[in-house]
């Protein structure tokens, strides 16, 4: 009897815990869902009272994000309505009484984000992989100190090094260039990259390479043909963590770029509509920015812990 009540009790406890967890999770995701829905809301629905959950979706936000628009006079409106060569974006704008004048800066900034995040990630993972291999397989003088040095660079508050780097970049002509930011993000990702990859490479048995070396492989061949394929999941996980950092970075981009190489994060706050803050456009920009990250979070859930603890803790 006692055993049965115990079991029922523990089942009730589990159900209670689970429902509380589900409730908290829903509460947690409201802002994310709200961002998603705002991106597709018409202007009136965004500022409606009480907040609207159901609405007719529109792409106004995305048009506002990608294009600069101007208000049409009634006469121009009529003229526009008779035209048949309008693109989908122009038709969406027309419904709000707006005409598209030109592409917004956001497109270029999104491209900058892609170039800089991509370039720095390739460099950080590539260099990190080589260093991680050296740390993992060779005896290195002062290895512990060197490893600590690499780790400590990540602990340094960026604000402390930004000023000298700003001066250095101005002198070298790297201010407001893609290469400048790529280099900087590479440096800030290197510590994570080395530490994560070292953990993954440590797990590959040395015997594989030793056998290959005996078979006449050179060290480089063994690295290329044996270690790399085995480390591929680690490389993938590291790549994505570096990408997320570079993709989301704001402070350096704000301080070290102006027009040419400015990335999206410092730009999204300045997306201003034709009249006041264009929340739909901001939500659309945020959503486009968030989607890749959400995909990544799901793809990587097994490695998340390793990624955010520098690989120090293995799941």
């Amino acid at each position, binding site marked *: 009897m006692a055993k049965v009540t115990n079991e029922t009790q523990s089942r009730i406890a589990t159900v209670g815990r689970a429902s509380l967890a589900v409730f908290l999770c829903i509460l947690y995701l409201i*802002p994310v869902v709200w961002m998603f829905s705002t991106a597709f809301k018409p202007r009136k629905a965004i500022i409606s009272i009480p907040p609207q959950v159901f609405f007719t979706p529109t792409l106004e936000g995305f048009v506002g994000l990608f294009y600069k628009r101007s208000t049409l006079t009634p006469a121009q409106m009529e003229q526009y309505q008779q035209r048949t060569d309008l693109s989908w974006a122009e038709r969406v704008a027309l419904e709000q009484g707006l005409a598209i004048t030109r592409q917004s800066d956001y497109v270029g900034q999104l491209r900058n984000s892609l170039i800089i995040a991509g370039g720095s990630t390739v460099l950080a993972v590539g260099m990190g992989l080589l260093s991680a291999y050296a740390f993992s397989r060779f005896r290195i003088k002062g290895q512990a100190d060197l490893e600590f040095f690499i780790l400590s660079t990540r*602990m340094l508050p960026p604000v402390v090094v930004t000023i000298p780097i700003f*001066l250095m970049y101005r002198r070298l002509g790297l201010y407001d260039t893609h290469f400048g930011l790529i280099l900087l993000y590479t440096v800030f990702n290197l510590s994570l990259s080395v530490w994560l990859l070292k953990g993954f490479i440590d797990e590959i048995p040395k015997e594989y390479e030793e056998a290959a070396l005996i078979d006449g492989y050179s060290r480089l061949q063994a690295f290329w043909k044996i270690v790399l394929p085995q480390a591929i999941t680690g490389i993938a996980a590291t790549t994505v963590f570096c990408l997320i950092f570079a993709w989301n970075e704001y402070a350096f981009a704000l301080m070290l770029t102006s027009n040419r190489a400015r990335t999206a994060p410092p730009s999204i706050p300045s997306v201003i509509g034709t009249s006041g803050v264009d929340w739909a456009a901001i*939500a659309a920009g945020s959503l486009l*920015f968030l989607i890749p990250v959400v995909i990544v979070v799901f793809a990587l859930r097994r490695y998340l812990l390793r990624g955010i603890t520098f690989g120090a803790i293995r799941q």
Partner: protein
Amino acid sequence: MQSAPANTSTSQPAGSRRPLTLSDPAIKYLFLWPTVLLLIAFNVFPLFYSLYLSFTDFRAIANQPPNWIGIQNYSDILNDEQLWVYFRNTGRFVVTAVALETLVGFGIALLLRSKFWGSGVITTLILIPMMSAPVVVGLFWKLIFNPNYGIFNYLLGFAAGKGPDWIGDGDLAMWAIIIVDVWMWSPYVMLLSLAGLSAIPDYIYEAADIDRASPPYQFFRITLPQVAPLLLIAILFRTIEAFKAFDLVMGLTGGGPGDATEMVSVQLYRIAFLGQFNTGKASALAYIILVIIIGVSNLYIKYLNKVKAG
């Protein structure tokens, strides 16, 4: 996988030489030095350079070489009443936000500790805020906090326009930042707590059950001490990060209203990159921040070692 070396060796007969063969030491240095040099160039050199600048009156926009002015910048900063306000703001934010994150994160970890159907998905979904760009998060919460059409007040049950103005009110704006920071970063504490919880062996609890130890006793005598090291690491990292808070503040309040939410990191940005470009003074402030962060980290690490030693 096991046969990889054997397989590839057939395609590459023993003894064949590629043009590029390097000795092990050569490879070691070739693999290592680019990383180390780059890190030195971007971390060690700037650190010394800004230390020097902090003793000068250098302005990045003036075409004048730096003049040595001794500890003038430091004494200016330490005597500046206004800067102390910013330090107080930062301190209030760090302590409150990190404390709440620890409670919420650890609480959720306890809920998700033993698996149930869907617990994995929930764990993953909760991590989304943490992985998104803080400036975008801050910006978007501005809409959520809007007193007229934001959903935050609506969900709290206020009629439109009747609820508190979270961003516009000097006392509440700090809480707005804290709420968003807790929303964003509690999952971090949760993730580390989960790792700590999963490492506690079951037999400890089984032994405690046999001894009829009460659940609170088990929690305070087994669970908490066992998770403490990882929890402290989470708190340490969060404290450092919260001290550097910049993106979120810029996106959400921009330091306002007035200077109710102005943090030292934001102030540093203003001194260094806006208006007068007061590079020397900004470097001095940056160094003060660095010393505080190192000091706090050391305190934590000492405490952490004590906890680990039992």
